[in-house]
């Protein structure tokens, strides 16, 4: 029912909004409260003079109370509320490492690059995983099925970064594909087409790595989901109705079997992020993952904080989208 769905969507949007707020707060305290106080830690560099430290502390507002100002005056005059206020204006601070670079600029560029990598990988792995899983389930018990199962098992056991290194090793030493970065550095292109080809060549290995890793799991879930659906009573009804096998699969089995896949995609978004971090590191792909890792290595906490926030919020929002798609696929959930 329409109203049921609207209520469902509203509820999910509210939950997502609350989660984002909790993520924001969690993110702030994570960097303030944990032992080793990184906000201060960054200033413990012995090469900095005390005056310089004091100046930096002033600049980053590290002298204010952390959560609420209980020392008199405005309750909201604290680091936490300053952070919220800045965030509302899209201000994530400035990088320690790339001095004077606003964190938001760094993140923006990186996010675009990550989407370039993750989106094709997701699409390829979902389409291929669903197709192969469907086929394996339909031909249950045959060699195709056993092959599909073994493939997913091995993919699951393979660390993403290791698969990346192996592909990179093969690509670099035997195929001659570029192994690092987004474009060939210093290249001059005759046409836009040439430029696109160059980007595509760079994208090939990282996308393949990510897609392969995701594919195994999608295939496994799709297979068991299709077997479950094909043993349901309504498939027997469809068979008794004299529908053709292809019609039973396309009109009765596919949509129902996709439901667990959609859930998995939602649950897997965090896994996708983790894959992206590893792939970007292996292939020096200038995305959010690489930015995160380099921020860690340089102890560049504003960038790390911003990158983590962006990753977490992306996952929350993507989750919301998936849940809304689910409610459209399965009319029962919005009534629950």
């Amino acid at each position, binding site marked *: 029912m329409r109203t049921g769905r609207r209520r469902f969507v509203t509820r999910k949007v509210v939950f997502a909004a609350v989660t984002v707020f909790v993520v924001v707060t969690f993110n702030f305290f994570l960097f303030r409260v944990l032992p080793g106080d990184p906000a201060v830690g960054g200033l413990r560099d012995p090469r900095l003079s005390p005056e310089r430290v004091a100046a930096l502390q002033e600049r980053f507002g590290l002298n204010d109370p952390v959560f609420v100002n209980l020392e008199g005056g405005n309750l909201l005059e604290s680091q936490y509320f300053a952070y919220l206020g800045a965030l509302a204006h899209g201000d994530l601070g400035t990088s320690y490492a790339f001095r004077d670079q606003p964190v938001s600029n760094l993140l923006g560029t990186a996010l675009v690059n990550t989407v370039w990598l993750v989106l094709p990988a997701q699409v390829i792995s979902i389409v291929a995983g669903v197709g192969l899983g469907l086929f394996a389930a339909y031909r249950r018990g045959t060699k195709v099925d056993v092959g599909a199962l073994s493939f997913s098992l091995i993919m699951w056991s393979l*660390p993403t970064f290791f698969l990346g290194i192996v592909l990179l090793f093969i690509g670099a030493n035997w195929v001659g594909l570029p192994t690092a970065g987004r474009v060939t550095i210093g290249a001059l292109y005759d046409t836009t087409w040439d430029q696109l080809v160059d980007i595509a060549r760079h994208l090939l290995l990282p996308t393949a790595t990510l897609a392969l890793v995701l594919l195994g799991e999608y295939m496994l879930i799709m297979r068991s989901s299709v077997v479950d659906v094909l043993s349901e009573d309504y498939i027997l009804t469809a068979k008794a109705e004299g529908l053709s096998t292809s019609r039973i699969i396309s009109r009765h089995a596919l949509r129902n079997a996709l439901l667990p896949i959609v859930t998995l995609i939602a649950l897997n978004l965090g896994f996708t992020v983790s894959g992206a971090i590893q792939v970007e590191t292996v292939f020096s792909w200038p995305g959010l993952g690489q930015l995160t890792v380099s921020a860690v*290595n340089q102890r560049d906490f504003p960038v790390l904080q911003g990158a983590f926030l962006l990753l977490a919020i992306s996952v929350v929002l993507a989750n919301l989208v998936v849940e809304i798609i689910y409610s459209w696929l399965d009319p029962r959930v919005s009534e629950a």
Partner: protein
Amino acid sequence: MSDRPRGFRGFRRHRLGMIGLAMLGIAVVVAFVAPLLAPYDPYANVTITIADIFQPPSGSHLLGTDDGAKDVLSALIYGARVSLIVGFAGAIISMLVGGTMGLIAGYRAGWLGQVLMRITDFFLVIPDLALLIVLVAIVGQSLRNIILAIGLLGWTGTARLVRSQTLSVRERKFVLRAKAMGAGDWYMLRRHVIPQVLPLMLANTVLVVSLAIISESTLAFLGLGDPRLISWGQMLNLGFTRGAVSAGAWWAIIPPGLAIVWVVLSVTLIGTALEDLLNPKLTRHHLEPEEIVATSPSGAQPVEDVLLDVRDLTVAFEGEQGPLIAVENVSFEVGRGRVVGIVGESGCGKTTTVLGALRLLAPGGKIVDGQVLLDGLDLSRMEPDELRRLRWDRVAIVFQGAMNALNPVRTIGSQIVEVIRTHDGDITKDTARARAGDLLEMVGIPRRRVRAHPHELSGGMRQRAMIALALACEPDLIIADEPTTALDVMTQAQILELLEDLQEQLGVSMVVVTHDLGVVNDACDDVVVMYGGRVAEKGPVARVFREPQHPYTRLLLDAFPTIEDPGRPLVSIPGAPPRLSDLPPGCRFAPRCPSAFERCHEELPPLYVTRSGEASCFLLAEPAFAGDEGV
């Protein structure tokens, strides 16, 4: 039986699981005796020259040397220690945290459970590797911190699993019974909940171990491992960042990678095996290729007034110890415009008979012998394509419990339209839609409900929709399999009335499968009483029920309460129906029959013609009882 307690006892027969266990065993042994196995001490300081770096495998270095000129094999052997320690220690933390959270959230469904679940949901959407990186970067890269961080981030899956298990155990009747007896929370958890949840939690923990091992190696690869320790991820990190790829030094990269795969695969195999044992997955489905057995063609000519003629139908299912005969030599006829009831207790083969006749058996089942003639056409030997065209067009089915028999994600209307257009390609979509509306009105559902999904209708309404669907192609024969089971008496009466009206209006023939003698009496002209997969007795309902000839029919009628004669004492039939795997050699009913004599236990009785029809009982062979000699 379905509720046999699931345990890990069958593990030794699970091949993949045993392989996994052996692989893990090897890794554990290697980790324990690392100093004995390793040719060099990877922690020792050595002075090196450029020439020692990335040396290919040789006699003195079986797997070559790494970027620090150290022996790769030795590092590999020592690396097993870190992976296994982090994997198991992290998983134990995850299991304790997740198990406790899940148990509380599931057992206390109130606000506390809600809060815990929200916390779990929150951690579930946080990208775990990103958080792991941040955490380790902040608290420092020591082994202890890494174990803690991995353990404290890996619990969400366990918590969700344990919670949903606990929630379902909590609703089970034996828990409610204990609660009604006055059991306290601690007793309930200890005696009922934890024993049910624990095995699944252990199986899950094994998978958590594999996640923890992967997390550790990933962290180390990203440069966030404990710098003082040699781990496989660390080896990959150093090899990768210090030029192993460009040096072509595969030996510095492939072995540690494969070592990780080895351990993770071993643990995953064990975990999958444990899950298989606890939750045996369905492995069969309705679209598996059908096995058609060539049955002997009968010489008999089709009889004029008979629409469906089932002759000597025998159906078998694959069993663990060979085929199980579920239906044996069943013959009955459905005359044009007649309603035939097939009645019997659960497991007597009544549903298998009708599904077998239409070749709609569950996977693993097949017709072994006999013919099924529909208007003279033998369904049992027909080509699949021909059979498909005939289905629903001439024989439709009203299934038991229409909730599952209708596709839950499609509207009632679209399912009716689909079947109409499948069997008549000339009908336009609009005409078919109009017809779907007409059909719904015919069975007493408002026209506008064509857009309803099955879950939006009540049980009675769903059964009506199922009947409308069955009428869609104007079939000659409708098979109703327990059409009113699970419905309330009043709804049952309404549905029976509807079927009766439609039958009179459309002149359609029907087979009604039911366990309820009252339904047979209300709705049917003829009855087939089945027991143990065979026909015990058949004939016109009024005659069979008035003068039952088979002891089983008689005892069944005596066991059935009636409202007219409340004072009549009811009598149970002693014993239980036979299992398919353990059928008695003679008459199926002999072990429970008060009139059984020696012959009954040795031979299968044929069907004898009786005053009220036919019955399969040796008592009727005695001249004193029988009219004519049997067939």
